[in-house]
């Protein structure tokens, strides 16, 4: 555990994590318009996208509108800011705010007093209006930039369930959450991270459901991040994990607003980052990684059975190759006679020991998969054909690998695709290789040792202070019934136990429909 996460250390820390403001940025605006504009232009020197539009309010008072081309809706700016002001003919002594209240029909408006305020407004797509003889300006919310449309999340597709996924635009994402959870108790706290990118990061939670200690911890960790830029939530994830060296993810990333809302309703917190469709959810347990959102949308029987299938295949994808290596190398007596002879026949021409064969095939398979992800979609088919032919058929016929090994690798591959969370699959894929080594050197004993080591690691692991195996090691009935099975909704009446906050009811009593 790194000391910087200890709650005691947080009190002494600087609460905000904005970069230190430079001398220019701290300066207040002055009365002279020329001075203000000149200082802004100096800061934005060589920035061809920054536009300073000078005009005269009512044909008398000098004013300037400063904005970044492409970030604002210039049409609206012309129509609702520049035109009405130029046409204004009211008394000259009205201050800027009064003038705007009378003339400007833009709903989002706020005053700016320093150069730094101006810059943060301008770079967020808010044109700043400055007037001569006025030591403050106004920023208008007219942001408009090209954004991707809401699409179906590709990495987390479901058969039943909402089909919209987050986009790269933070406001669109928060609006999707707000459309689902309308209660004002859902809070969205803004934190700015990144010295240069000044990325907006939003901490989402439902007041009263989320543990206050957890929230405080999340704020402390987020505000502790000092970095030049945040391009993806992955940056944040790695900076705030409990155990940064663990192969297991301690935050869940998702593209689905419904998954985030489900987590919020359970008292978890979510972290949304500007510029990425991936939200982070914390705290999570091992089983969060094995649950698909669809589990909760289908009826409970299929969900329960599929969950079991998933557990079995998660285990298979972890141990099957190493088990095969161990059995063929050390424990042949465990294989039933008929199977053993057919295995031995196909292994006979293979020149490599099983350990090497397994590693070769697994590495090839991982390479094929990675190639399939990186290649343009049109070429993907070619890769899979070549992969199937080369790795499958030809290698077996050439006697380089045995057919059972190909089958084992294929089943392992399919098993790892079954995991609903990509990141969970990665953890298991990585751990498979050391297990193959252990299986090839110490047989079944080695695999057991490896599994014990993994379990011990999981026993220690925490996600935002919540034990990773919490739900099974405490054996709470309310948690178990969402793990061993997916209990029907009318029975899932208690929120899961997270951290130390007492559990709360999420349903009125007796929700089970009457058996007609």
């Amino acid at each position, binding site marked *: 555990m790194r000391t910087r996460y200890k709650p005691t250390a947080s009190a002494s820390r600087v609460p905000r994590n904005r970069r230190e403001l430079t001398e220019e940025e701290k300066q207040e605006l002055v009365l002279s318009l020329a001075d203000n504009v000149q200082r802004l232009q100096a800061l934005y020197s060589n920035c061809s996208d920054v536009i300073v539009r000078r005009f005269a309010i009512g044909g008398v008072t000098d004013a300037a509108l400063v904005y970044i081309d492409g970030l604002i809706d210039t049409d609206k700016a012309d129509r609702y800011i520049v035109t009405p002001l130029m046409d204004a003919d009211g008394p000259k002594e009205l201050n800027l705010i009064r003038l705007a209240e009378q003339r400007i029909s833009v709903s989002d408006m706020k005053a700016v007093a320093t150069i730094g305020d101006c810059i943060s407004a301008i770079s967020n797509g808010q044109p700043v209006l400055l007037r001569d003889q006025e030591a403050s300006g106004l920023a208008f919310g007219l942001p408009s930039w090209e954004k991707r449309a809401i699409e179906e999340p590709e990495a987390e597709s479901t058969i039943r369930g909402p089909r919209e996924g987050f986009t790269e635009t933070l406001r669109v994402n928060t609006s999707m959450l707000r459309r689902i959870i309308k209660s004002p108790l859902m809070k969205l706290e803004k934190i700015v991270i990144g010295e240069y990118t000044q990325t907006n990061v939003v901490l989402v939670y439902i007041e009263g459901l989320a543990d206050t200690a957890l929230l405080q911890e999340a704020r402390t960790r987020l505000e502790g991040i000092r970095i030049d830029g945040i391009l993806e939530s992955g940056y944040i994830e790695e900076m705030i994990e409990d155990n940064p060296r663990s192969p297991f993810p301690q935050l869940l990333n998702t593209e689905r607003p419904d998954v985030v809302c489900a987590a919020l309703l359970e008292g978890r917190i979510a972290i949304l980052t500007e510029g990425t469709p991936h939200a982070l959810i914390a705290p999570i347990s091992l089983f969060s990684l094995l649950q698909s959102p669809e589990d909760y949308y289908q009826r409970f029987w299929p969900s329960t059975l599929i969950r079991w299938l998933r557990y079995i295949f998660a285990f298979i994808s972890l141990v099957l190759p190493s088990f095969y290596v161990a059995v063929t190398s050390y424990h042949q007596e465990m294989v*039933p006679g008929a199977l053993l002879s057919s295995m031995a026949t196909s292994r006979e021409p293979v020149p490599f020991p099983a350990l090497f064969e397994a590693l070769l095939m697994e590495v090839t398979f991982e390479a094929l998969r990675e190639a399939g992800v990186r290649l343009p979609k049109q070429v993907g088919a070619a890769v899979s054909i070549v992969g199937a032919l080369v790795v499958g058929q030809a290698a077996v016929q050439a006697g380089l690998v045995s057919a059972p090994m190909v089958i084992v690798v294929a089943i392992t591959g399919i098993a790892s695709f079954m995991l609903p969370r990509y990141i969970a699959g990665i953890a298991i894929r990585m751990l498979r290789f050391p297990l193959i080594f252990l299986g090839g050197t110490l047989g079944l004993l080695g695999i*057991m040792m490896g599994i014990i080591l993994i379990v011990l690691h999981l026993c220690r692991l925490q996600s935002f202070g919540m034990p990773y195996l919490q739900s099974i090691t405490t*054996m709470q009935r309310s948690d178990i019934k969402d793990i061993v099975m997916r209990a029907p909704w009318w029975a899932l009446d208690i929120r899961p136990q997270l951290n130390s906050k007492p559990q709360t009811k999420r349903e009125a009593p007796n929700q089970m429909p009457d058996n007609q």
Partner: protein
Amino acid sequence: MMKKNEMITPMQLAFILYPTVMATGFLALPSLAASYAPYDFWMIGLVVLGTGILSVAAATSLHARFPRMTVVECSERILGKALGKIIGMLYFLNLVHVTGVVSREYAEFVKNNFLIKTPMMLVIVLMLLLVSNAVRGGVSVIAKSALIFTTCFVFPLIFLLLLLPDLEWGNVLPFMSHGIVPVLKASAVPQSWVSELFLINFFLPYVSDSKAGMKWGYIALSAVSVSMVLINLIVLLVLGLDTSNKAYPILVAFRYISIGGFFENLEALLLVMWVAGNFVKLTVFLYATVTAFSQCFGVTDFRTVVLPIAVLASVFSIWDLPNFSVMQQLLVKVGTFETPLFMNVIPLLLLLVAWLTGRKSADDGGVGG
């Protein structure tokens, strides 16, 4: 770790205790017992209840009299500093010895049945490394991992039900043909295993609710008793008089399983059981050893001494134990007396002295024994 005051739930206690007795017991005990009472050894599961109750009662009443203290700490309270330290030292020596012998038992089985060419020391050292890793994680890691591995340990026992068609019910007869005495003789060794339930004493200080802890202690005892009866019965019904000739009758029973000509050779399951169970057992023993040592010598952070003590235990695992049969002899001739001495006799004497002198925990005198 984050929290100083780690807590475990009372139920986890049962999951810790069950393999502490059964991990080696289910494999070694049937043949040891069968040599004394070839027809009636299945009853030992019931006879050992007495020792078990004595152990759990001694552990919990010591803890009730001296809350939040282990036997090592309260022996100092009861007998004074010098004598108490000696008792603590003896506990340490006994526990490190038993840890060594248990890891030897574990390694013997693995070496003789699964990894015949692998050096014994490697098997022992790898296991003790894992165990030290768990112990360094503290009580909560021990408890959590015990929960998972005890489940792994119990689950394969279900497969013994596949033997139902092969059971030869006539094997239980003649029933008690030589009276109760052979059964009592046969249970001399198992009761030393069961007395190890006293190790609950080392975990009670971390149990949130010690009343419930006691309850789960007894539940663990009944589970041990029931599974001993069942396992011994199955072994007897499958192997009959042959039981005492086998080093590991359960292994033979598992090899016996054959369903549909394909579902057979399930020894792999036995290995899983064996490793998982012994992992928990060794974790418990090593933890108790380390606790005894650090409390006796006032070590502030027990984590620092885990690895050295594990090394010491690995020495005890080979010292003076040239082969399997010598180890069996040690278990029968020495273990039968050594373990109950520390797990039953000394705690009961301590309780007696405490009761006579009326000594209680200084900081919390309200709780009586």
